[in-house]
């Protein structure tokens, strides 16, 4: 006879303590220091001993098969303990130093790069793209794969001046919060929403739709006795906020959607303040499956940075030291009217000093 199981709600996540490696428990709150043994391998030491971490890449969009492969490796080499980082890397937590190299060998045989530590390009924080999202202007997983195929060498080494955080967001909603990354690839729409006057009156609440526009470009109107909206296309900057509240105003436009490239953001407080990313390239075409224009643009920026920045200087700190005119000069990127801000805080980006480098 089937027994009724009590339905549980609001239990919250399992307590983390049951997933902590015994050395993590023993040294909890009492770690002394850490060292990097080689790219992707960290050693954290406390009085109870040293814990070794092997960090590797993941595609983030991962199948149950992939996760089981990783847990099998964890069972073999790290007593079944593993964790994930905020940048979608996988970390195996090892008590036995002898297990480091055999684990790395197996990962390499599976074509999974080990690295992402310190002055490296770590794994890419990204969004869903065409894999799952209704508002994306580009794909995310494919862009990441194409970009990282060219940057893998910077993941598996620590030869950059400082860490380089790359992020991809497939529209201005920025579920990946790319606005504070060293290099960001941002999907952009470039044409106003197309209004479906047939379905809009039934699907959307007019006042909410009108209020959603940050530029007051949306007005209510009446077509054949039905209330709908119009968009002042000169005021529209394609943010998509109206589409978020009103499904009858899609922005996707295969001919015009694409990506923009942003640089110089930073989150840590090390040395300088956290900073926003700033626009480097306003538009590059969507060119799947490998987005060659976007990939070579990102690679160029990182290579110019690698060649010119001082040790431990982040992308944004380097650009601030040399000045933006020189950044455009060194990278060969064209400066255009699109680089001039015209939204809320535009004036804060205009230069008031005569500190020119001639």
């Amino acid at each position, binding site marked *: 006879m089937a027994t009724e199981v009590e339905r*549980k709600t609001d239990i*919250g996540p399992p307590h983390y303590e049951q997933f902590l490696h015994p050395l993590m428990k023993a040294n909890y709150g009492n770690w002394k220091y850490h060292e990097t043994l080689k790219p992707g391998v960290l050693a954290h030491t406390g009085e109870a001993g040293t814990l070794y971490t092997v960090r590797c890449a993941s595609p983030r*969009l991962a199948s149950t098969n992939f996760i089981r492969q990783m847990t099998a490796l964890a069972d073999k080499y790290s007593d079944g303990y593993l964790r*994930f980082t905020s940048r979608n890397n996988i970390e195996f937590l090892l008590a036995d130093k002898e297990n480091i190299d055999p684990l790395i060998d197996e990962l390499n045989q599976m074509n999974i790069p080990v690295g992402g530590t310190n002055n490296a390009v770590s794994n890419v924080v990204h969004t869903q793209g065409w894999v799952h999202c209704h508002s994306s202007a580009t794909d995310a997983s494919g862009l990441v794969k194409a970009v990282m*195929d060219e940057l893998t060498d910077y993941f598996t080494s620590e030869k950059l001046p400082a860490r380089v955080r790359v992020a991809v967001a497939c529209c201005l909603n920025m579920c990946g919060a790319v606005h504070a990354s060293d290099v960001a690839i941002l999907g952009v729409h470039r044409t106003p929403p197309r209004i479906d006057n047939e379905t809009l009156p039934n699907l959307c609440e007019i006042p909410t739709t009108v209020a959603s526009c*940050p530029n007051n470009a949306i007005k209510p109107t009446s077509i054949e006795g039905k209330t709908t909206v119009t968009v002042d296309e000169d005021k529209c900057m394609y943010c998509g906020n109206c589409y978020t509240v009103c499904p009858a105003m899609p922005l996707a436009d295969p001919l015009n959607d694409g990506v923009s490239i942003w640089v110089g953001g930073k989150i840590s407080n090390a040395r300088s303040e956290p900073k926003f990313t700033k626009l480097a390239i306003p538009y590059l075409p969507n060119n799947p499956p490998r987005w060659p224009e976007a990939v070579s643009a990102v690679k160029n920026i990182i290579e110019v940075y690698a060649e010119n920045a001082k040790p431990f200087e982040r992308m944004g700190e380097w650009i601030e030291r040399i000045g933006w005119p020189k950044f455009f000069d060194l990278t060969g990127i064209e400066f255009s009217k699109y680089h001039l801000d015209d939204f809320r805080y535009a004036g804060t980006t205009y230069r008031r000093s005569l500190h020119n480098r001639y």
Partner: protein
Amino acid sequence: MADDLKIPLLEELEKGPWPSFVSDIKSVADKSEMARDLLRQLEKSYEDKRGYWKHGGLVGVLGYGGGVIGRYSALPEEFPGVSHFHTMRVNQPSGWVYTSKALNEIMDLWDEHGSGLTNMHGSTGDLVLLGTRTEELEPMFQALTQKGWDLGGSGSDMRTPSCCIGPARCEWACYDTLDLCYNLTQEYQDELHRPMFNYKFKFKLAGCPNDCVASQARSDMAIVGVWKDEIQIDKDAYAEYIKDGFNVKEYVVDMCPTGCITADENDIEIDDSNCVKCMHCIARMPKALAPGKERGAALCLGAKAPIVEGALIAQVIVPFMKLEPPYEELHDLIERIWEFWDEHGKARERIGEFIERVSLATFLEGIGLEPLPQMVKQPRDNPYVFYEEYYAEEDEGEDA
């Protein structure tokens, strides 16, 4: 089967040194019609340069308003396997720590109830189970809870809090990020599962100002560990760095943002009264330098991406708070912030935008905090001051 998928564009992404999501999805395509049709629909997106997902759809599990993202294919006849492709957000453990056993259990459930595809993890922090049908949501939810797991947030609710690895594996953690993350998640289960805010509210907890979880960029309340007293110096370890030829002048002294370090071959001294706790010197010499002993956190509010009024980086609201269980002072402040935002905020207005609209002064008054110079880069540089105190001229002929 996987070899008759006809996805030549996507198969280009099976080449190259980086792990291929295409190969990985293919690996489950034989057992998952969802995975097969996801690849086929994605191939069409690559051909046509556009997505083929419908806008949202309200689905969920009984009694919850969040934790499930409804998704339907715009081409269900062509790709029936993804006619429903809903996401379930599973609340991850603090610090994203797992055992093989626990992860394998979730994977077994997901093969049974879903597409066999995941995101490890989503941007907010959840373990994302990507793609299932409406009728599988409740059975999957119940199976998860029987194993001790629960859903995270979505929509206008408290989103799933997330944190760095903190004291479990980092000598720089200035408070117990894992414990506080667990505490907030449990304390506010109702706010997590039943959207009733103006808009989303995210917590991210970082153990030190390095902010490995990007809290200052990505959370409505960033709780960032910091210390108040002197950086701890191990002079013997310092001597080791010098002996090994480490260039302390170029890489530490010259890069200190406030110039508060004096160092030579024999000794290092730090003027801690002028140190801004940026972590640069500590990160360069982790064996010789460590955060001080009087530890706690700074609380910052308002980070967000551009939609609607522009992107924001979180601003300081409490420069230092001791954070120890049961965290009553913090809970109290959080609840005052929510209450004031709830009462005066507009729909789809994040806390950062709300503060900008009503002004920081009004906001502080509303939540009962005194203004402090640590909250601003500088005092205002415009003279449009709303004075509230002034003298009234006394009426003539009346006695004072």
